[in-house]
């Protein structure tokens, strides 16, 4: 009891102090806020002519529909006005919804706030919402789209993608209105379940580098994987930390295996892999990778796949001791690191780091070429944003929700509205995260420096080292890779474990998605 009284006493004391300070100082936020340097001319902004807004066809009048959507990173902030605490409030989706509702008065769109702190928390929330019959109609399928599909949470959108966007060009299919079809993930059952909203500028993952170190050591921006390794060796010999990786669950990210360090080594298997003879990514059946694992086309027994891992390990040898357990970012900020692995999503944060005193930049992950391996081909290069083979953020229609509420058509229409060029541009460009996914939507000039670099042209049909085939496979391979690159696991044992994880991942997908393998 005394303790509670004591706490109350302290609180009262504190409140009294604050009150007296406020009275004595005669403060007012606005007075102090303006400081002594008044605005030059703070008249209200003058809006001038604006382009004609795209006409939105109204849906069938009558039936009142409420759509519920959860949009993770695009969720509007509570603060709508910029302040020091919320310097860049998110308001775009509010405006977009307001606009949509004006044109479609029978539709009400509600934003459902979901946990954003971790994937696990979000998945738990979604599971609960679905079980309770309260899931949103449109949702971010997280970065485990596969898991959402396996749980039958998502509605296939194939038939809609083959028709025109209700708000777009009537002569173009919805799918063709996007920058490239590879942004859509095709599942082994041949269906599409998610619609891409934004994509990476260049590549989602990249290398940040210390230009001062590169200039001092007379190093050029690496154009091939071998040139990267050579540059890092020189930096290491000069006493710098050659490279620091991003660490996931105390293991490596394995990001480079997804393309640059795998595809140039597997081009010889393309015909064997593309068993239906598809001419483009969109024509592919979707089950090619599962078949390739089961048929031994993707196999750790093959020297090409072992070579991929060897080249990855060479990069890992450039990391400092303790990479898996220690925070290496202070070394980067102090200018002691030549190259750091990172993502384009960190760009704004890097640009705003005032603690750093060296000149820095980014370069795309260079591809393996013939200077690295006898198995590799030299991919052609071109200037401009690299064509993405996946999106960075999708939205999908939640099957149990729309089926229960009868909102399928309205959910599709709203998703189509979000992927018109003008709306997609406004929504994605509000905060620099990446590029819009729809043709005709402008990219932000902040990414122009990346557009100026050359990137390898990845063939539309290609075979990466897909360690992300299932979350279980990724975890198992990640654990084994962490030990192997630290020389705590023998080569043969490592390759056997990777093979086992990939095969089990494929078997699980075939079973869970009831894949017909009779034509394999």
């Amino acid at each position: 009891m005394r303790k509670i009284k004591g706490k109350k006493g302290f609180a009262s004391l504190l409140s009294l102090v604050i009150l007296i300070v406020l009275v004595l100082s005669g403060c007012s936020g606005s007075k102090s806020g303006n400081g002594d340097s008044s605005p030059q001319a703070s008249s209200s902004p003058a809006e001038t002519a604006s382009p004609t807004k795209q006409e939105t066809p109204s849906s069938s009048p009558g039936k009142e529909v409420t759509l519920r959507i959860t949009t993770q990173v695009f969720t509007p902030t509570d603060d709508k006005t910029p302040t020091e605490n919320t310097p860049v409030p998110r308001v775009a989706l509010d405006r977009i919804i307001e606009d949509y509702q004006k044109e479609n008065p029978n539709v009400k769109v509600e934003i459902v706030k979901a946990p954003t702190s971790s994937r696990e928390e979000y998945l738990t929330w979604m599971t609960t919402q679905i079980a309770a019959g309260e899931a949103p109609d449109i949702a971010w399928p997280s970065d485990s789209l596969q898991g959402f599909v396996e749980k039958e949470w998502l509605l296939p959108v194939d038939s809609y993608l083959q028709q025109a966007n209700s708000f777009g060009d009537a002569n173009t299919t919805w799918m063709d209105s996007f920058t490239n079809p590879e942004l859509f993930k095709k599942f082994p059952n041949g269906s599409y379940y998610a619609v891409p909203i934004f994509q990476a500028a260049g590549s989602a993952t990249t290398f940040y580098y210390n230009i001062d170190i590169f200039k001092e050591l007379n190093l050029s921006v690496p154009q091939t994987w071998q040139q990267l390794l050579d540059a890092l060796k020189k930096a290491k010999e000069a006493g710098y930390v050659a490279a620091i990786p991003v660490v996931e669950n105390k293991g490596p990210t394995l990001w480079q295996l997804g393309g640059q360090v795998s595809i140039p080594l597997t081009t010889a298997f393309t015909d064997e892999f593309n068993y239906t003879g598809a001419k483009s990514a969109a024509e592919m059946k979707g089950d090619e990778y599962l078949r390739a694992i089961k048929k031994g086309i993707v196999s750790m027994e093959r020297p090409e796949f072992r070579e991929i891992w060897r080249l990855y390990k060479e990069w890992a040898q450039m990391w400092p001791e303790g990479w898996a357990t220690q925070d290496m970012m202070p070394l980067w900020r102090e200018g002691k690191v030549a190259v750091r692995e990172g993502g384009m999503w960190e760009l704004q944060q890097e640009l705003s780091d005032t603690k750093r005193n060296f000149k820095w930049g980014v370069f795309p992950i260079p591809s393996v070429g013939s200077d690295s391996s006898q198995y590799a081909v030299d991919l052609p290069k071109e200037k401009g944003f690299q064509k993405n083979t996946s999106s960075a953020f999708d939205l999908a229609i939640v099957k149990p929700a729309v089926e229960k509420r009868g909102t399928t058509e309205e959910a599709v229409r709203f998703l189509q509205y979000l992927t018109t060029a003008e709306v997609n541009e406004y929504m994605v460009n509000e905060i620099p995260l990446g590029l819009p996914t729809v043709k005709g939507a402008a990219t932000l000039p902040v990414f122009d420096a990346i557009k100026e670099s050359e990137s390898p042209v990845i063939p539309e049909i290609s075979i990466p080292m897909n360690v992300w085939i299932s979350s279980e496979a990724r975890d198992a391979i990640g654990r084994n890779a962490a030990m192997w690159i630290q020389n705590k696991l023998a080569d043969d044992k490592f390759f056997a474990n990777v093979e086992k994880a990939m095969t089990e991942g494929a078997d699980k997908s075939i079973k869970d998605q009831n894949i017909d393998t009779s034509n394999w």
Partner: protein
Amino acid sequence: MKKKWIALLVIVLMAGVMTILWRIDDNRKIVFDVTFAPEQMVADGKSSVTVQIQVNNVDGTPRSGDELQIIRMKGHGQLSVSRVKTDRNGQASFAYFSYRASSFTPVMTNEIMLSDVSVGKIVGVYKRHVFEIPVIEPEVDDSDPSGNDDDGYISLGG
């Protein structure tokens, strides 16, 4: 009774100290001088404006090492950075990128606020300066800005 008087005295003393700190901090004057080129920005989604900032004390001496938070208060342009630090001459600069005019992002005067977060730390009220960047309709779509420097390095910061 005596304890109550002591408690009240302590409260008044604490309040007095905090008030003095507040006054000292609030009365520290700094002078912002902002220039930018070009003097207006084209809403073409490609061009940019380079903003130069000079931060001085009232006696004219430059304030080096001040951290400035940059906030777009109105408009739709993009800041290249959200924070900059003044150099030994009290200077800092940043780029403000254009946007493409649309019904969601109309042509309008953009308003930027600089907040010197190195001043006012004690009371949490920073020195601020607001300026406007006029924005005009685009004429011809022909610019192609490059981020490469002379040595072929893709430079973004530092």
